[in-house]
């Protein structure tokens, strides 16, 4: 590591001029930096070189004359003399291209890659004008599906191994590989092992020919008919850079763009979820979008005009006074989040505003922990994860974690169920729900907890040797340690994880944290005040009050209710219960971890106003539904898991009468007789930059200078690197955009800083949470999210919807033996709250004494979110007894 950190410059001669290479840099990359582009197919800047396509051959002078060498595999040496333009090189390039085209069908006119094809482009630039190949080309059945999403045309394949290397090297799932020999070599999935990767779409994008195609784009458009908007993916909170492409105002494709957060990769939900916006190109049905305002009349929702809907909403809100609860907003833009915070807290005067559905972590923890960036993973001395399955929740963050593991960075994992991180972990500690903090204490050297863990009727949940290995790998004082902390288990109280994170921050004062909240812009929503007790800019009500006094008409004086507190008060008829509930894109009936509480609470609200882009279970029972624009229809910014603000660009117009999130807030304020004082998204952005302490100085120019990579707030806390040149073959299909040079105003940028100190914020997090002891007859429930679930994106995307599994409960084989039933049998899980009939799956990786369920998956008898029916939000942990039916 130390060697890489100190760049050593190597001077060599390239086509007669002296150029410089960094130590460890390959010739092809050094040449490209110096302005000499060497053609390539197999080389990919985000993967290890393999040197198989031989397109990048250059002539290198050596002791025994010049030899042709693959520039992707040769590191320049001091004084090396290289030619990329000699006759010998040109003949070799000509030869390789002629060989590649020998068996390649010339079906460019009907090939999806035609027009954006590296083989086409490089043949034009470097290849022979015509082929001397008159033989019968190789034939395969075409195309063959190799997964639910990807199809393979083996005749077009040029065996560059980009896809197989991506699968093995980047995703860590070698589910596709080469079979056969000679010119009959083909890429193939394994007959016994399906290609189920969450990252399969990347293989399609990096394919340098049309061999791999994705179902959602096949024959949908031609590259020259496509419009492109560079934006940020809002499928989860990683914030991957994307090129969103559309044709005739319908989304056709989402491509990864290389950048420092995502390295160009996307998960399949991020890539193909666009179908939920404008529909699949070949589907008959439209996605379930809300396209017009709706009002409940005579017990039935009917379309109405915006003015009628807004009047009705304003009337209900006026009548309620400050007795208003606002839930959601984590899918909104930053500007929308700010607008709604200003409306709720500054106009209506309620602080019962919560972007999280009790599935995240307290805002004071998010703001109070020392922040890490994703780039810090590249230089971390060790990484500690306490999260659900990252490859399911924040998929591309998982890929970045794999990169770190590949570099040799030790990853220490505390988990409740082994997952994809476990496979790359240096040491993995399995814990049962409720025991995380105890294990964290042991990790910090406090062995008082050991006896209690050991006394569990099923024994210690982890190998003591792994604990010792983990301790040894953790750096003294936490220097260079990056901790990724997220909600491990939706069947337990979030304060358990919060307390553990706080303890780590205390024991490792130099450690930095990535708080792995999952929803797209949950971080922006929290930052901009959609959480009780805070005003926009990560400041508490008390500390922020004076800053907003001049611009906002009011600010709340007392901390309001969280989502669960609002619904709880409604359900029990408590005096604090809000009279009107405003749901900002939230669907508690599907998405709240306590399903019974959502049903009971929503039923009791006098008026429910739902702002939503899609029809959901919650819109169906609302009094007023207001259609809002969704991903790829919006202008504004979003904030990722690091607190990085990046740009959203609209690629298509919103359907029907959908309005932007901030527009609805402004119009509603208007209807209430107030005025948010802002009329454009830029005006909201400017007010955020002026008033929100954490966002001070975040100007449009500064964002533009970051060229899609975004700016971590507070401004100045992380360097801005600016535009990188686009390698046209690395991520084919992305249209080149003019590189924007780093902004000239950098020097004058105001340094932003959180106004409320971290220690003060963390002091509100409990030191420890008391956990009930194990019940020898019960299993402790762990509920985690999956990438493909019953949420609006997946269920409305025809290509993704079939990938949602039915709910199953995974238990250790011994638990099924005890019950005397076989794997696959439907069992009854009985919690204190309810019971659920669900198929049981025997899984020896499940910790004894634990039952594992996935969130937001249905069963035969319980459509929707089956797991939520078992969970009581008031309980610290969830114990279930498993019975035969």
């Amino acid at each position, binding site marked *: 590591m130390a060697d890489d950190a100190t760049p050593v410059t190597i001077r060599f001669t390239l086509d007669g001029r002296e150029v410089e290479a960094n130590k460890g840099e390959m010739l092809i990359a050094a040449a490209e930096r110096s302005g000499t582009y060497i053609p390539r197919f197999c080389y990919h800047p985000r993967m290890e070189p393999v040197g198989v*396509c031989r397109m990048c*051959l250059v002539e290198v002078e050596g002791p025994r004359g010049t030899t042709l060498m693959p520039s992707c*595999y040769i590191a320049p040496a001091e004084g090396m003399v290289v030619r990329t333009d000699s006759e010998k090189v040109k003949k070799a390039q000509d030869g*390789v291209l002629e*060989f590649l085209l020998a068996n390649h069908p010339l079906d460019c006119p009907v090939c999806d890659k035609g027009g954006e094809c590296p083989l086409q482009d490089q043949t034009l630039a470097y290849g022979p004008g015509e082929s001397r190949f008159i033989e019968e080309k190789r034939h395969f059945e075409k195309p063959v599906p190799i997964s639910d999403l990807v199809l393979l045309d083996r005749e077009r394949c040029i*065996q560059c191994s980009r896809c197989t290397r991506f699968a093995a090297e980047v995703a860590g799932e070698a589910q596709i590989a080469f079979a*056969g*020999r000679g010119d009959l070599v083909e890429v193939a999935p394994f007959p016994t092992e399906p290609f189920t990767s969450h990252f399969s779409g990347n293989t399609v994008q990096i394919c340098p020919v049309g061999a791999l195609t994705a179902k959602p784009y096949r024959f949908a458009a031609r590259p020259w008919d496509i419009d492109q908007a560079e934006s940020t993916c809002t499928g989860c909170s990683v914030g991957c850079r994307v090129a969103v492409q559309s044709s005739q105002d319908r989304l056709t494709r989402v491509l990864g763009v290389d950048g420092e957060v995502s390295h160009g990769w996307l998960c399949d939900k991020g890539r193909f979820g666009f179908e939920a916006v404008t529909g699949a190109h070949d589907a008959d049905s439209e996605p379930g979008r809300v396209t017009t305002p709706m009002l409940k009349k005579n017990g039935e929702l009917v379309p109405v005009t915006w003015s009628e809907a807004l009047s009705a909403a304003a009337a209900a809100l006026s009548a309620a006074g400050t007795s208003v609860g606002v839930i959601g907003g984590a899918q909104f833009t930053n500007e929308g989040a700010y607008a709604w915070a200003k409306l709720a807290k500054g106009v209506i005067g309620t602080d019962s505003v919560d972007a999280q559905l009790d599935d995240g972590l307290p805002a004071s923890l998010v703001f109070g922990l020392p922040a890490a960036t994703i780039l810090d993973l590249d230089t971390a001395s060790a990484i500690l994860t306490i999260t659900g399955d990252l490859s399911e929740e924040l998929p591309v963050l998982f890929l970045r974690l794999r990169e770190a593991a590949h570099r040799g960075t030790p990853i220490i994992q505390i988990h409740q169920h082994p997952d994809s991180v476990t496979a790359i972990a240096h040491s993995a500690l399995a814990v049962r729900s409720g025991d995380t903090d105890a294990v964290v204490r042991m990790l910090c050297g406090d062995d008082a907890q050991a006896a209690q863990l050991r006394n569990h009727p099923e024994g210690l949940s982890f190998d003591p040797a792994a604990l010792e290995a983990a301790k040894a790998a953790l750096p003294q004082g936490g220097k260079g340690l990056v901790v990724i902390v997220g909600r491990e288990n939706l069947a337990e109280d979030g304060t358990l994880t919060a307390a553990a994170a706080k303890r780590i921050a205390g024991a490792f004062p130099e450690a930095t944290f990535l708080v792995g909240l999952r929803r797209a812009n949950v971080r922006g929503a929290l930052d901009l005040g959609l959480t009780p007790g805070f005003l926009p800019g990560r400041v508490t009500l008390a500390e922020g009050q004076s800053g907003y006094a001049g611009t906002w008409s009011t600010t709340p004086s007392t901390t309001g209710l969280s989502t669960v507190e609002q619904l709880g008060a409604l359900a029990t008829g408590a005096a604090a219960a809000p009279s009107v509930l405003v749901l900002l894109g939230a669907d508690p009936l599907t998405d709240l971890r306590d399903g019974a509480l959502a049903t009971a609470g929503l039923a009791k609200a006098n008026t429910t106003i739902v702002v939503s882009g899609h029809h959901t279970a919650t819109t169906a029972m609302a009094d007023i539904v207001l259609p809002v624009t969704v991903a790829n229809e919006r202008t504004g910014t979003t904030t990722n898991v690091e607190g990085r603000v990046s740009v959203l660009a609209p690629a298509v117009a919103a359907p029907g009468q959908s309005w932007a999130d901030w527009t609805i807030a402004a119009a509603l304020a208007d209807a209430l007789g107030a005025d948010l004082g802002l009329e454009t998204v830029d005006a909201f952005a400017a007010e955020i930059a002026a008033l929100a302490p954490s966002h001070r100085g975040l100007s449009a120019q500064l964002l533009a200078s970051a060229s899609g990579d975004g700016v971590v707030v507070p401004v100045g806390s992380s360097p801005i690197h600016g535009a990188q040149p686009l390698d046209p073959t690395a991520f084919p299909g992305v249209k080149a955009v003019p590189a924007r040079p780093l902004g000239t105003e950098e020097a004058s940028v105001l340094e932003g800083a959180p106004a409320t100190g971290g220690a003060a914020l963390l002091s509100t997090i409990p030191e420890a949470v008391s956990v009930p002891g194990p019940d020898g007859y019960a299993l402790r429930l762990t509920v985690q999210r999956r990438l493909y679930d019953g949420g609006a994106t997946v269920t409305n995307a025809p290509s993704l919807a079939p990938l949602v599994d039915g709910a199953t409960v995974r238990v250790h084989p011994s638990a099924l033996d005890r019950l005397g039933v076989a794997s696959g049998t439907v069992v009854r899980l009985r919690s204190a709250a309810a019971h659920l009939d669900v198929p049981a799956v025997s899984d020896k990786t499940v910790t004894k004494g634990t039952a594992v369920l996935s969130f937001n998956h249905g069963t035969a008898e319980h459509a929707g979110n089956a797991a939520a029916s078992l969970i009581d939000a008031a309980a610290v942990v969830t114990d279930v007894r498993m019975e035969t039916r």
Partner: protein
Amino acid sequence: MSTTIVTARREFDDSFTIERALATGAYEGLKKALAMTPEAVCAEVDAASLLGRGGAGFPAGRKWSMLRKNPTTYLVINGDESEPATFKDHYLIERDPHQLVEGVIIAAYALQVTQAFIFIRGEFALGLERVTQAINEAYAHGALGRNIFGSGFSLDLVVHPGAGAYICGEETALLESLEGKRGFPRIKPPFFPAAIGLYGEPTVVNNVETVSNLPWIVSNGGAAFAALGEGRSTGTRLFALSGDVERPGVFEVEMVKSTFRDLIERPELGGGVRGGKAVKAIIPGGVSAPWFFPEDLDTPLGQDEVAAKNSMLGSGSIVVMDETRCMVRAAWRITKFFSRESCGQCTPCREGSGWLERVLYRLEHGGGRMEDVDLLLDLCDNIAPGLTWPPQQTTICVLGPSIPSSIHSAISRFREEFIAHVHDGGCRHGR
């Protein structure tokens, strides 16, 4: 002439049994080696100046000295002999497995390696059975396992059957295959497994015949071995002689002291060209080698002597083609082999071999065009630029640049035969 080293037991039908092996001195060389220091054993091999018998002819002692110092090192024996007309290791594997096992143990002791592998071509069913048997017997005899013959040296030896790919004879592809992966040759650098080999650890890869010489070298001394042969080519070599000769087979011949003519014509060796016909062409060292012609018959069977004539002694397989043979067909058959066995990694080899094969097929079977002859040469040039010997390459391993040898040789010498095939719409002889 009559000196035999690795085929000393050829007169016995039961040469593969441990009883016969022990009765004829097996494991005596090992015992002597174990009484020496490892350095002394290496010194004997250096003194013997034993050249590798796998094809490249790299000095075994030098290869050993390159083994990087490391807590874990491996020895791998390449018994994947798969090239057409090459069958001399096959002979040693089947006929004298104990000599092979003894050689492996001596090599391992000299290198202080405690884990060795023999990678044997999967199609050698009998050979696999006999080597496996020999290893089991060696364990029982105390020659393998813990504390060999009470010396304190321990070695485990594993037989690994190949899965049928010629490319796994390329040492880095062999290592990949041994690791359980697809047999793709590794890109160079690193150039030698002695730096980074099996499982990323330093590894020596030796050929079956190379290590089969070790018991004799230790028993008789490196100097005695070096006294045989001439120049850099010391000792004896096994030649797999085939094609149009009266007595095809495996022959052990002292290096340099005999010529190709001797090998083909002597009654106790090849016994002459079959039917008394004239030689048309000779493949002197495996199908990768440029061909020899009648004027080359008096070239001595030595590494440098053959190299001086722009070919190689290679894998020791010599194929005689008589005056009736069709050169287009010969080139086509060889190219067909390479096109089937190309691993498919590098574009020029994968696509070039198949293309060449199809063009040659057309020439031989009808459908040849006049421009095909130069097309063949230019495609060859795109695989091995300049068509020089030793070849330049555009590929990761040497399979690619091996393809042009036969085509280039055949066209250079018998261009008119190719042209006749075009005129005649195919081959008149079909032979």
